[in-house]
């Protein structure tokens, strides 16, 4: 049982809650939008969000209101809001729940953001596989339009807000915001060189804000209950509010848990997710999705807020917490993630495109007991030549599993290589005997 108040998951945990417009209105839904439309200046809404301390829930953790503020002030042409619902970071599965169980909470958040930044058109870029989610959102948009919460002159305020649902088609990289924009423009999802940033040159080269589903879902609550209330939750001043952590792997009760930021990994894994699934001990934790470096059981008391996880050498990222038990091969785990990155590299930057292939091949060789000690230096050198040398953050992400497993479990790599060397030595006398 949660000891704290649920914010984002509150409605859907009520018995009988279906996520329909009627149900959402009964919980006070769309009152936040009513409260601000035509009554509060858009710039004041942005200030409120800045004051709340809300930071992006997609991975990078950039302050949301500050991002909005980067839009050019004197610009009068079209601006766009994109809701990033690509949810493609392995280990993350919270946005799907927010969209499928309480779609209007997301839509109201989007309408608030549209009003604040002056966008009349918004797109929800949802990953292609979430067919059910896109249908639920389509239906919710139609309901909200019918009720006057979306469409022309919303609630008679004069503000026009249109939302469209756009399905991706199966590419991890389209969660990167500029790749998302390319994809939404009907092209291959290749990240753009920045600057210019989407705030000035985004969708169709117009000022654009891209925000994650969970980020947007927080907005109605901030408007209703105030920035101070939100800023008092979690681990202020820099990590405010709750996070929905997605726990997966070798725990008893995997799933989504909404908790105030700043609880420890130990509390999340052992109190909320029920602890380890068997009597095997915890061995490794990925605290923030596949792009976050691995941590060990030594890090169980690290607080789950942006700063603490970063100080421990990893990142809070998308909130996907994966737990691995004793007996899991770390070389195998690193390879599994590396294969993912190899498959998903978009191919734009050579270090990532070629490097992900070399890293995968080298790891496969080591795991198949055909490695050599010098492979470890090769791995490190490759990683160092990928991170920071690509257009987007994918390059940094793909080296995280290898660098961190090499840091904490180098002996596992060395054991596999020693076995390889021993079997190679055994082969030598045979070779001699042939002469």
């Amino acid at each position: 049982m949660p000891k704290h108040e649920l914010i984002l998951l509150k409605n859907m945990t009520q018995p009988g809650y279906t996520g329909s417009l009627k149900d959402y209105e009964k919980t006070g839904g769309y009152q936040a939008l009513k409260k601000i439309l035509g009554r509060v200046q858009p710039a004041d809404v942005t200030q409120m969000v800045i004051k709340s301390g809300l930071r992006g829930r997609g991975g990078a953790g950039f302050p949301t209101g500050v991002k909005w503020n980067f839009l050019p002030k004197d610009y009068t042409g079209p601006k766009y809001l994109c809701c990033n619902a690509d949810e493609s970071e392995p280990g993350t599965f919270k946005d799907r729940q927010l969209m499928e169980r309480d779609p209007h909470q997301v839509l109201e958040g989007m309408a608030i953001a549209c009003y604040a930044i002056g966008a009349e058109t918004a797109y929800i870029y949802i990953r292609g596989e979430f067919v059910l989610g896109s249908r639920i959102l389509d239906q919710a948009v139609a309901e909200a339009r019918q009720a006057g919460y979306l469409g022309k002159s919303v609630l008679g305020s004069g503000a026009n807000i249109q939302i469209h649902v756009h399905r991706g088609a199966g590419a991890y990289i389209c969660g990167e915001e500029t790749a998302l924009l390319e994809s939404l423009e009907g092209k291959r999802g290749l990240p753009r060189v920045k600057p210019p940033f989407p705030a000035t040159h985004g969708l169709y080269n117009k000022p654009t804000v891209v925000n994650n589903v969970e980020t947007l879902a927080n907005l109605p609550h901030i408007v209703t209950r105030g920035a101070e209330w939100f800023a008092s939750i979690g681990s202020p001043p820099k990590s405010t509010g709750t996070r929905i952590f997605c726990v997966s792997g070798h725990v008893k009760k995997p799933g989504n848990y909404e908790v105030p930021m700043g609880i420890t990994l130990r509390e999340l894994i052992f109190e909320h997710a029920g602890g380890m699934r068997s009597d095997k001990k915890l061995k490794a934790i990925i605290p923030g999705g596949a792009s976050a470096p691995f941590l060990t059981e030594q890090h169980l008391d690290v607080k789950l807020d942006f700063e603490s996880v970063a100080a421990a050498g990893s990142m809070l990222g998308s909130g996907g917490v994966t737990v691995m038990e004793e007996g899991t091969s770390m070389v195998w785990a690193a390879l599994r993630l590396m294969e993912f990155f190899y498959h998903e590299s978009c191919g734009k930057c050579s270090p990532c495109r070629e490097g992900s292939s070399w890293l995968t091949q080298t790891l496969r060789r080591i795991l198949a007991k055909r490695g050599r000690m010098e492979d470890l230096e090769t791995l490190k050198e490759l990683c160092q030549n990928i991170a920071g040398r690509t257009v987007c953050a994918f390059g940094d992400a793909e080296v995280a599993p290898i660098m961190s497993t090499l840091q904490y479990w180098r002996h596992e790599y060395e054991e596999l290589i020693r076995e390889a060397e021993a079997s190679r030595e055994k082969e030598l006398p045979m070779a001699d005997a042939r002469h």
Partner: protein
Amino acid sequence: MLKEKHQKEIDDIISRYPVRRSALLPLLYLAQREDGYVTEAAMKEIAQILKLTPPQVYETITFYTMLNLKPVGKFHIQVCKSLMCALVGSDQLIGWFHSKLGIKPGETTPDKLFTLSVVECLGACGTGPMMQINEDYYERLTEQKVDQILSDLKNTGACPLKSGPFMWPEPSGAKK
């Protein structure tokens, strides 16, 4: 031809975007719904509708894994093999499919009913091992569940084990 059959839907899709090319992915999905994969004729027609060249359409399709350039079976089974699912047994799952359907990843059964694909993360890591068949997710899979799903799909074309609106863990007091 797509245009003759779906004029209204196509117009509706195009009206959502200020720039026509944005309608490309939605129109490709429409074409795939029609034929099970994107045919060359559909690519040419979509290019014409959106005022693009056929290579512009083709280069976009090849970037995305969900668009098929070849026919697939009536039921396209896509099993997630990424780390989070692999930790809870996705490799065994792929093995069961192999033993039950006699096909390896990338292959289709001779009766053209099932195609097996092994894919990267589908965003359901807390309820693995999992798979997607056509538009539906199936989660927390066991050997028995897989048996039922395959026989239901074969016999009736639908299976009640598919996932509904997602929430995990389920709220206490929810009906089972």
